[in-house]
């Protein structure tokens, strides 16, 4: 080190020195976060490795964190001996239809509540807010009786209809539409656009981010829905994936590898959707929690 270098090092401001020092608080927080992340991830990891083990290895004593031999027998069995193909189709069709209908109807409803002036607007919004407070479970008997009377049990419409009530999507859309300057609507009105055109050509495209975020969480919610599809679909041909995998357990007793394989297969599409649209999903969760994204 040259003699000139000494005063230079002394001249380093305190702030820079603090930045270079070890951030103990940050380290502790990071460590805690990592521990919680591992704890959350471990069951998924355990399900995946169990699904690749042979049944004898699964029930063997001792902790085995990695299969001795990668075994896809459980997956083959599920694929060949259950109606998982149907369940996938049922889940895909019902979830996609629920998503599409919820998004379109909620956007329309929210636009009307936010932008149009009609008698009873406030009362309707209060009713929607009230619906938000009532959990699905509280209405499930009514839904079941209604669907039975309509003879819609064990049909796609029977699975779909009660799941179309998603007030949070209306509330989030309304908040967004409220925040859009009214001049955009008025400019479109001057441009001879009607309410539907204003909604679908101006308001929704102005922020596809919100629509895509809401669509993703609606899709994930519909895919993961268990209670209502479990009641509405009693025949194997109309079951969705989460309901269908209960049949794996019932038909074969407790065969852990197969059970885990079916769970992995059920969760895989949602995991893929989440990984592809991670940022949007986070945004949607924050929006629906009332926090601006």
């Amino acid at each position, binding site marked *: 080190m040259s003699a000139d270098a000494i005063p230079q090092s002394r001249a380093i401001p305190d702030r820079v020195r603090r930045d270079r020092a070890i951030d103990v608080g940050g380290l502790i927080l990071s460590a805690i976060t990592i521990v919680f992340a591992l704890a959350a991830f471990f069951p998924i990891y355990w399900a995946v490795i169990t699904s690749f083990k042979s049944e004898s290895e699964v029930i063997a004593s001792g902790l085995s964190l990695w299969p001795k031999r990668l075994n896809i027998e459980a997956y083959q069995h599920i694929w060949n001996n259950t109606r998982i193909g149907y369940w996938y189709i049922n889940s895909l069709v019902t979830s996609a239809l629920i998503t599409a209908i919820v998004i379109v109807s909620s956007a329309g409803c929210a636009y009307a509540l936010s932008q149009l002036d009609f008698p009873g607007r406030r009362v309707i919004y209060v009713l929607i807010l009230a619906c938000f407070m009532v959990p699905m479970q509280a209405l499930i008997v009514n839904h079941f009786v209604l669907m039975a009377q309509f003879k819609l049990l064990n049909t796609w419409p029977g699975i779909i209809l009660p799941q179309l009530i998603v007030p949070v999507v209306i509330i989030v859309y309304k908040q967004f539409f409220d925040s859009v*300057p009214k*001049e*955009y609507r*008025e*400019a*479109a*009105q*001057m*441009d*001879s*656009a009607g309410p539907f*055109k204003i909604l679908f*050509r*101006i308001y929704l*495209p*102005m922020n596809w981010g919100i629509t895509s975020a809401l669509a993703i969480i609606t899709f994930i919610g519909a895919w993961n829905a268990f209670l209502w599809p479990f009641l509405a679909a009693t025949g194997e041909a109309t079951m969705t994936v989460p309901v269908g995998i209960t049949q794996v357990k019932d038909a074969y007793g407790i065969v852990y590898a197969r059970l885990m394989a079916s769970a992995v297969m059920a969760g895989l599409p949602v995991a893929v959707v989440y990984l592809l649209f991670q940022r949007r999903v986070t945004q949607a969760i924050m929006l629906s929690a009332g926090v601006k994204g």
Partner: protein
Amino acid sequence: MADIVLSEVSKSYGAVSVLERVSMHIKSGEFIVFLGPSGCGKSTLLRMIAGLEEVNDGEIRIGERRVDQLPPGQRGVAMVFQNYALYPHMTVRENMSFGLQNVGTDKAEIGRRVDEAARMLEITALLERRPAQLSGGQRQRVAIGRAIVREPAAFLLDEPLSNLDASLRVRTRVELAQLHQRLKTTMIFVTHDQIEAMTLADRIVVMNNRKIEQIGTPMEVYSRPASRFVAAFVGSPAMNFMPVTALAEQNGRAVVTTGGSVIVTNIASAGLPSGELTFGVRPDALRVAPNGSFSGTIELIERLGDRTLLHVRLLDGSLVVAEDVGKSQLQTGSPVSLAADGDGTHLFDAAGVAYHAD
């Protein structure tokens, strides 16, 4: 192009009245400016013509058609908003085409009109950009372009210059005047800026407190304000007002005593009310003169280059603003004598009604 006629138009929100029995006739091709302070109802009136606000009473006609019950898109008018309201997800071309698509205009015709308007406004190079990629001035042009392509009977402009910086505002003002000369279409322009009103308008509609105070050419509004409000609102610096303490008559003209001075006006004394009066004179009609009617001391000098404004404390304690030449040699604290030009004098009665020099 068509005349726009408003007859006894009123508007209220519940019990709150915002416009009361407003009537006016806007001639085809006129540049009309609605001028007034915030909350006077000028924007509401414009929005009622546009169809964005319901008319509670009265009627609006554009040409032969009664339009006050028609939706905005069917009135044949186009509007430029204060914040432009360009659709952010559409390109400039799409923004300009949207209105024409909605009324089923042929694709080739849309292209022709958009290209022609873009050429006229010199925004051809911007047609494929989105609003976020444009400057404030460019957005302004696009907003005007969006209105032009519809070939409307009238343009409605709601404070379109207020979001621009000072120099761009002046430039755009000139361009707007040139555009009006070229298009010869009726334009209704809302502003609270009197310079915009004076420079752009064929006629100014001065509004205050839910009513029209005066409709006239810029010079009429400036020289012969219909009321004390108009006299105070139009003109910068504002007109000087002084209470009249005595009123006499000389050769049929009113002679008033005010500010401790006697002033012979050119206002006919016949017809003046007997009650309380206020004398008014604009700073440009109150000049430095050796033996003027008013005497006082200069408190403040504002040098504007081409003219000098003198804030003078009169002997009776009232403060007036007078004008002197740009190269005025006067200094703060100096005594000064002022003379009012008889032709530039005004009197206002207790109700604010104005009486002018002939």
